[in-house]
């Protein structure tokens, strides 16, 4: 969590504008979460995380140009303090392991209840504050 605010600063990265709108609304229903920026592809997502110093990025995988898997690696390089929660239409069985292997902290499937998504973001933010702890056990979702 940011040292300058009590909120968890979340960056949204998904090529579907409607999903970004829905996620912004869904996340900000929880007062502890604040969406600080959004992007429609991986490259803009990496730049946005750097610019906004987001605590957590909620990241889609399938996007034009740089996809989510590549973006995860870049974010881990350039903004290692930022937590990465993947929110993807691909099943966890198919891409969960690949996403966690390249550095994501959680893998959620699109369609998960809002409270599960909010809880994952809060958990990852807490872990990062508590010393950058890596998630244990199998991927959520």
């Amino acid at each position, binding site marked *: 969590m940011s040292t300058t605010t009590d909120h968890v600063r979340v960056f949204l990265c998904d090529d579907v504008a409607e999903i970004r709108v829905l996620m912004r609304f869904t996340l900000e229903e929880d007062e502890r979460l604040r969406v600080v920026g959004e992007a429609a592809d991986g490259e803009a997502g990496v730049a946005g995380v750097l610019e906004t110093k987001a605590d957590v990025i909620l990241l889609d*995988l399938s996007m*034009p140009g740089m*996809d989510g898997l590549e973006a995860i690696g870049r974010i881990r390089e350039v903004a290692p303090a930022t937590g990465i929660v993947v929110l993807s239409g691909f*099943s966890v069985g198919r891409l969960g392991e690949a996403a966690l292997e390249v550095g994501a902290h959680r893998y959620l499937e699109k369609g998960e209840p809002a409270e599960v998504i909010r809880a994952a973001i809060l958990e990852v933010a807490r872990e990062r504050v508590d010393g950058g702890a890596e998630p244990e056990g199998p991927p959520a979702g």
Partner: protein
Amino acid sequence: MRELETERLLLRRFRAADLPRFTAYRSDPEVARYQSWTPDFGPAEAERFLDEQDGADLGPPGVWLQLAATDRASGALAGDCAVSVVPGPPRTFELGVTMSRQAQGRGLAREATAAVVARLFAEHDAHRVTAVLDERNEAAARLLAGLGFREEARLVEADWCKGEWVTLRTFAMLEREAGLEAA
């Protein structure tokens, strides 16, 4: 046919990690424009595609084998090449190629197609390799002509695709014509 290397590409079987990029360009209306498939392609369709391609190989007529065309330097998926055995005449193959919008305009489709065609003649005993195009797909027509394919026919409004009649152009190359690639 499992793997081919070109100067800039590695053509190989699809893997799960290719699916995000594959889905992104398959659902791009610009990329889908002259293809037989529609851009309503999502993660579920992509996962089904990977299941269908698992273990697929050139053999059963009419079944498409799709190879991921990946950037040799970065490993990223640039597009794909599809090949199938044409039902009926022996030693006859059809091919297709798709590149993501980001990978277009760099000669990668030509590089991938040339490699597949060469492999079909060299190792699969091809007699004839064909490609069928929407006649509006001028870039693909130029690519095939540049590789030495002959334009064989123009089939006027021969296909019904995406709510309209489509005129097709067919191109082909015979084994004895292979190696006559235009400069």
